[in-house]
């Protein structure tokens, strides 16, 4: 064997890291130290000694059984298990539909890693935090322009929390108008994120969920039948998880307004319509963005994200407090909001993500945001065309319609033919360093999978993803066993689920595992 090297095979020969790393407690050696900490001065020890009579009963008698590891072993443990995790920087992550797995620019990581942000306290003198206040203020103005809304709260740490903030404002608004007691229903759609329904319920509302019509659109007649003087709000996504744009959205909003309800737009997935259409254009009273989706902040293994709750003028008095205002050339914190729903989260919000989102918007500008949207939609329709070429794959609803930024597909035909499920195909995809997500529950689309290519992936990467998808679908026919027994090239093999739903057997901590299964 000598040069030249043979051409690469059509599919990548992937294998994820497999360190077979123990649980950290198994690595413990009594006496090892990971870090040494500051010791109190003699004067401080003396001061504490004067309180010892009262303190003694509060002292812990047995040390917590934390693991004891030298520092390098801590590093090695965590870096090994980090390699056993497929971040979006490694993956052609177009399989996590509805989550907008776009590129999180590295310059934004450089920007935020400064003591001027990491080591800044929210109660500092305003004169010493003008920079971060200005970025919050500017980001609010940018998002207000992008949504068409009057004001924006950046206080929440994720999309669902922003939905909560919105429903809290809706409740406060109706109460202020004197009909809080009457308006006890919230209407949503089955293809809107489950948190719309769940937050409304948690706020005390009865939830009415509209099902799609035959073409996959939210059913406008069902909405007409559902609204009444009891309607507090409509909480709806558009396009929904199907990627189909609901052209009657303005009518939906009007129908709710006619009975005195409010309309809240879940814009967690706004990526395909940035600069194309705005919540205000359709008459919405509130909307929210996820800065970790559309606005590029990294998804952080499941947070922190950041939510942006955007409201029209009439909801401004109810915004969570505090707000940041510009007075002359100075940025200042305003706590004076007597009708505010109050604090929904500590302080001002996820500062590193607000800065990242600000930097992302400023890297693009109006034309760039429009390019983002247009390219995300272009990529999505390209992906749609390619996926539909795979035998057994379909895109239910609205046949022949273009989709916006994502599509909920179905392997139903393939399943009927082979008995291989969408979950199984998804797990087999991981053997090629790919991933996909099926769907929120309930599975209205049978054997679902949801893809969203965003603007970040090149044509060749989309082609590579589809090639793997087609290959695995082919395996479902030719070698279903290899799919059913997947994964084969992963960190771990097929995981059992027998214990996860059994209170007598589940193990949510190492100590519980020791007690329940090892009699320790």
């Amino acid at each position, binding site marked *: 064997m000598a040069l030249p090297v043979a051409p690469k095979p059509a599919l990548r020969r992937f294998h994820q890291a497999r360190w077979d790393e123990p649980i950290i407690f198994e690595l413990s050696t009594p006496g090892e130290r990971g870090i040494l900490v500051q010791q109190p001065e003699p004067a401080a020890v003396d001061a504490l000694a004067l*309180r010892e009579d009262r303190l003694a009963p509060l002292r812990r008698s047995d040390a917590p059984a934390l693991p004891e590891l030298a520092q390098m072993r801590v590093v090695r443990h965590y870096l090994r298990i980090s390699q056993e*995790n497929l971040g979006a920087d490694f993956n052609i992550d177009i399989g996590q539909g509805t989550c907008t797995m776009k590129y999180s620019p590295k310059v934004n990581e450089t920007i935020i890693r400064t003591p001027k942000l990491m080591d800044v306290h929210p109660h500092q003198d305003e004169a010493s935090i003008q920079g971060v206040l200005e970025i919050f203020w500017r980001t609010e103005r940018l998002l207000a322009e992008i949504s068409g809304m009057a004001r924006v709260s950046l206080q929440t740490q994720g999309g669902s929390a922003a939905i909560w903030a919105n429903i809290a404002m809706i409740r406060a608004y109706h109460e202020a108008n004197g009909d809080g007691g009457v308006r006890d229903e919230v209407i949503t759609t089955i293809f809107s994120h489950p948190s719309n329904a769940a937050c409304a319920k948690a706020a005390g509302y009865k939830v009415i969920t509209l099902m799609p019509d035959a073409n996959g659109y939210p059913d406008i007649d069902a909405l007409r039948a559902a609204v009444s003087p009891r309607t507090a709000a409509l909480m709806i996504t558009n396009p929904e998880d199907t990627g189909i744009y609901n052209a009657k959205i303005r009518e939906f909003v009007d129908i709710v307004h006619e009975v005195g309800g409010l309309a809240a737009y879940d814009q967690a997935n706004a990526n395909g319509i940035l600069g194309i259409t705005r919540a205000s254009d359709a008459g919405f009273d509130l909307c929210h963005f996820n800065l970790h989706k559309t606005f590029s902040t990294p998804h952080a293994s499941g947070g922190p994200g950041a939510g942006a709750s955007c409201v029209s003028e009439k909801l401004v008095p109810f915004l969570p407090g505090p707000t940041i205002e510009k007075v002359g050339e100075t940025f200042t914190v305003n706590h004076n909001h007597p009708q505010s729903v109050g604090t929904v989260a500590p302080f001002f919000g996820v500062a590193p993500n607000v800065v990242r989102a600000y930097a992302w918007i400023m890297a693009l500008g109006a034309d760039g945001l429009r390019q983002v949207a247009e390219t995300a939609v272009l990529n999505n329709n390209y992906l749609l065309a390619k996926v539909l070429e795979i035998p057994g794959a379909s895109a239910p609803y609205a046949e022949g319609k273009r989709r916006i930024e994502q599509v909920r597909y179905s392997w139903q035909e393939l399943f009927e033919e082979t008995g291989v499920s969408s979950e199984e195909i998804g797990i087999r995809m991981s053997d090629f360093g790919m991933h996909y997500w099926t769907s929120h529950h309930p599975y209205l689309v049978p054997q679902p999978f949801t893809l969203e290519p965003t603007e970040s992936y090149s044509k060749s990467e989309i082609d590579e993803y589809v090639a793997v998808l087609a290959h695995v679908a082919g395996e479902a026919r030719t070698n279903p066993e290899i799919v059913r027994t997947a994964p084969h090239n992963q960190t771990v093999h097929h995981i059992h689920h027998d214990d996860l739903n059994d209170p007598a057997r589940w193990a949510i901590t190492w100590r519980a595992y020791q007690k329940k299964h090892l009699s320790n």
Partner: protein
Amino acid sequence: MNNPVTHPYIPNTVPAVREEILAAVGAADIEEFYADIPSSLRVQGSLNLPAPLLSEAELERHVSGLLNKNTSTREALSFLGAGTYNHYVPSVVDEVIGRSEFLTAYAGEPYEDHGRFQALFEYQSMMGELLNMDVVNVPTYDGMQATATALAMAGRITGRRGIVLVSDANPDLVSKVTDYVRSFMDLTIIPSSNGTADLAAAEQAIGADTAAVWIQTPSFHGALEEQGARLAQLAHDAGALAVVGTDPIAYGALTPPADWGADIVCGDIQSLGIHQWFGGGRGGFIAVHDDPTFVLEMPSRLFGLESTDVPGEYGFGDVAWDRTSFALREEGKEWVGTAAALWGIAAGVYLASMGPTGMAELGETLLARTAYAAQQLASVDGLELSDSALHLREIAVDFSNASLTSTAAVAALRARGIEPGVVLPGNRLLVCVTEQVTAADIDTLAATLTAVLKEN
């Protein structure tokens, strides 16, 4: 597409590629994809946004330039706390959570994302050791959300409405809880007595409709509750739960609430290896005993250990998925979403680095420095401590007999490069010390306060 630049974040704007894709999908123009959006809903022209900073260098300079207007707590002596704490963050923590594998992952399956499942299971497990409880959630957003949910859980578990708060709690936390639970529960606040719970008043208030006796220790003013066991007993005697909000930072040295009767323990993990981030680095923990009555009321995800087809191999999965709003929409427990997983990983690395000895020593250092700060501030002419309770990390100082108000004193000390604390109502100041503040720093604070009070 007026912009001729191929943006580095948007590869398929290369004109030839774009044309190739359009041809492949049989579209003449990108406008075709937006055909369903009525023209009345279309943005006319461009959004009114500032001109972009297209070169990375210009962008970095602009945003860093704004941030550089800030002064960090490394550049000034800071005694600020009140919910965000200046603890030391080991370098190992920032190294791990800065890794792309963790930073850019999201919601993969426990195969390709085995690592985050393991890291978060280990976080849950180490928190369980610190708190002496067998079940800890994947972090929710923050301590406020954790507390609101812990109290809502108590309402669902007991079928009762009443919450009796017996401690001084952060007013923002009270605001959050009040609005969060108000459709189902009512909050009664029992004023504290000398910094901690007023047992007699608490006993009066706890009754047949009490779902939770809510204890904060340390309190908003840093006071440690010494009567926790009696309060938990009062709760249990009334058929209520003891819900304890706390900061886990000192449980290497102090008895965790579960040992004196807490049923649900909750709070924020910012102290455990997360920078101050202008108040924006947070995660909420909720810990319970391994009792399905409690576990099945938790809205958050819970990662559990599992076996795989290969002996000796650990796998992970979601425990009791069918209680979450992901599974059941509005029939799930409250709601769950993208919350604070990376901060959970950070806290895990922190606890693994600190170990039992590090956490015990840190607890001692915090208690000792707090006691020293209390001693030194009490000795400043005109200042008095607001209470005589035991304190951890924070103390409330009363300026009623001083020559300056607490607000004026803050202004005077800021002019001398010191952030002396957070102004509290009633002409008081909340002073915070951590392991980052030395006895000499505390001496500086006391001496400077003495000087400015004398000058006025």
